């Protein structure tokens, strides 16, 4: 079974530039998550989709971050404009259930973003 795919794996940009990340979840998984993982910290949930609808985006900095999941499959996360503090690994995860409780979240390898 193919896992969660993410691209690119690495990205280096200058502050104030824009960047986009792509995620392809495990086939059939209705729920998709984007996490931000700053070096030395645990993942922090940015946004959760159920099919193509947003379930929770309360921790997404909406002035600069946006995400979409058209057709309820692939998803993109965009940052515009980027700040130095956005340097982190951006993880995508998917699960078959609607909740992280009792429904295993499968994580992709992440995209490491460096903002200079």
């Amino acid at each position, binding site marked *: 079974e193919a896992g*969660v795919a993410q691209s690119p794996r690495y990205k280096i940009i200058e502050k104030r530039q824009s960047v986009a990340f792509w995620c392809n979840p495990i086939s059939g998984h209705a729920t998709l998550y984007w996490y931000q993982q700053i070096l030395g910290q*645990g993942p*922090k949930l940015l946004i959760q989709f159920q099919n193509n609808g947003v379930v929770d985006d309360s921790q997404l900095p909406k002035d600069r971050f946006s995400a979409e999941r058209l057709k309820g499959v692939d998803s993109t996360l965009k940052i515009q404009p980027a700040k130095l503090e956005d340097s982190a690994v951006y993880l995508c995860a998917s699960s078959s259930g609607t909740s*992280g409780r009792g429904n*295993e979240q499968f*994580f992709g390898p992440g995209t490491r973003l460096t903002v200079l």
Partner: protein
Amino acid sequence: GESVGLHLPTLSVQEGDNSIINCAYSNSASDYFIWYKQESGKGPQFIIDIRSNMDKRQGQRVTVLLNKTVKHLSLQIAATQPGDSAVYFCAESRPGDYKLSFGAGTTVTVRA
């Protein structure tokens, strides 16, 4: 602030010994807990979970213990192997909250 935390950021273990990784949580309402393993350059991988109506759960070479009285969670790894070297995270959620909140992680290094 974070609702879960780990006692030690790093742990060095001799190969073949048992490892114990600790986690403390602050919210007594938390009723679901998960341990994840994250190897360098990879995403977190599920290890084991436990609900608050249990105090112990065993998997393959791993055991999770939950002490609700002191709000403490631990992960025990039996006969630690070099492949167990990774960062380990505990995560929790509360009734009615589908989200997982992750702690900061413990880096486990296995010595040959």
